[in-house]
């Protein structure tokens, strides 16, 4: 690629950051049997919403920002879309709502300021964030230091490239996902889960406790796992089993009886009993909790109900309202 092309595709400069920002696509799939976590977005719905609003194809990447603020500067005219919870968006001199796409002129700044609620937001750019794929994905693997931008969080001075927009910028701007398509995010959500596979490792009273009491999302929670604090669950017998595969949302109960929910960067296998797994449609509620503050309650659901809920949720992405 010649130098001129390289310069033209430079689109977003990180001016300032005090949160955790990483490049994520929909996830690193196909390598989990080798011990490679899927990484990808903490709130998959918001990620896909931002991506679709910017007119991007399925495997396009965006910036995930959490825990703090980020300021970007557009290096050329583009369309950006922002979706998530707990952020204020301002472009140039104006404030704008999330869950929409916006025309941004070269030189304008885009600022996301963290509010008291929520946790993660996604900034998609027309053409997608472009970087070197590693193991078929550009998602950042922070622990392994690969993927995304050199396997690390974004920092001031980074310049990100984007690809060719799918349509003209005028057609991509001013699109919105109506509120009716959004899930009901809450600071203190009820989270659906599917029981098992080691439900039988716990006494009936423990299972009843798990389903009735409030858990606080610990402030030690991160992209690897969300730790929950509350009444300890008691194991009927051993607190360990031989390792088996895990998935995002799996709820492990180690020997101290405090649940840990596996999140995007969690290891692919684990040896603690799992009381259940968070429903895919409800992972976003947990992900958008405020560590140290939010309280959650678990509610049992069936696989069939959970799949239906997930289908309805993702179908909601089709309700994007085009610009006039």
């Amino acid at each position, binding site marked *: 690629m010649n130098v001129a092309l390289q310069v033209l595709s430079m689109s977003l400069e990180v001016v300032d950051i005090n949160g955790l920002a990483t490049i994520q696509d929909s996830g690193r*799939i*196909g*390598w*989990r*049997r*080798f*011990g*490679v976590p899927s990484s990808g977005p903490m709130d998959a719905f918001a990620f896909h919403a931002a991506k679709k609003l910017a007119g991007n194809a399925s495997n396009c990447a965006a910036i995930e920002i959490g825990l703090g603020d980020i300021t970007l500067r557009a290096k050329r005219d583009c369309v950006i879309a922002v979706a998530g919870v707990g952020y204020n968006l301002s472009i140039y001199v104006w404030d704008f709502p999330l869950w929409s796409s916006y025309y941004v002129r070269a030189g304008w700044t885009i600022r996301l300021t963290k509010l008291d609620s929520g946790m993660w937001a996604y900034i998609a750019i027309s053409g997608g964030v472009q970087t070197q794929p*590693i*193991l078929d994905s550009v998602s950042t*693997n922070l*622990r*392994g230091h*690969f*993927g995304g931008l050199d396997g690390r969080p974004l920092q001031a001075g980074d310049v990100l490239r984007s690809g060719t927009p799918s349509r003209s910028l005028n057609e991509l701007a001013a699109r919105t996902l109506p509120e009716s398509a959004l899930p009901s995010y809450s600071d203190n959500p009820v989270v659906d*889960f*599917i029981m*098992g*596979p080691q439900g039988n490792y716990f006494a009936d009273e423990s299972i009843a406790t798990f389903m009735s009491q409030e858990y606080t999302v610990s402030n030690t929670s991160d992209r690897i796992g969300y730790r929950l604090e509350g009444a300890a669950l008691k194991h009927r017998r051993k607190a360990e*089993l*031989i*390792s*088996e*595969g*895990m*998935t995002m*949302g*799996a709820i492990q109960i180690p020997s101290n009886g405090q649940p840990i929910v596996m999140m995007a960067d969690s*290891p*692919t*296998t*684990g040896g603690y009993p*799992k009381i*259940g*797994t*968070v*429903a*895919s449609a409800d992972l976003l509620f947990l992900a958008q909790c405020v560590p140290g503050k939010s309280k959650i309650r678990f509610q049992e659901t069936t*696989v*069939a109900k*959970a*799949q239906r809920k*997930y*289908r309805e949720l*993702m179908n909601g992405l089709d309700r994007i309202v085009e610009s006039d």
Partner: protein
Amino acid sequence: MKPGVVPLGDSAVLVQLGDEIDLTVNHRVHTLANLITTSAITGIIETVPAYATLLVHYDALILSFTQIKNILREKLTQIQENESRQPRRIEVPVRYGEELGPDLESVASNCGLRVEDVIRIHSEKIYTVYMMGFTPGYPYMGKLDDALSMPRLETPRTRVPAGTVAIAGSQTGIYSIESPGGWNLIGWTPLKLFDPNSDSPFLFAPGDEVKFIAEE
């Protein structure tokens, strides 16, 4: 134990073939994994073998739990009839002891053996890669001879270099990237277990056979 297919949430199912670390059961896990991969079933995303289970990730927008359960139950009947395997054999040169194998001597004394015996016993067997996990490219291998059975360290080390060969319980492993580690470190291999930029990023795959070769 009767094989079971249970949900792990709404987008994965766990096929349970046993509840102990057992080579025969583990071989069956790999046979099933290969069978599913070669069948290329729409909606199945990938499989993750472990000691006695196979986790199957699937797309809940394409397959219902009932559908995937039926597919997997059918595959389970097929593995009973067809259990032949042709695993790859990988040789791993090891420098036993020295700086990167600091626990070799304590393993020897704890097991009532000479250092040479530990090396001989560790390197004479052919191991199966039961599964991979913990870090990208990390192989859990067995079955380690009972004579070398050692518990994990009480206090894990905060940094173990990539390539370090280790043992714990009935298993042996090799640290694939620098990471914390709680196993007993007995040697080091110059082989690279994980290179994200390579066309073949992983030295090992689940189900491989491994032979350690002591370097002089």
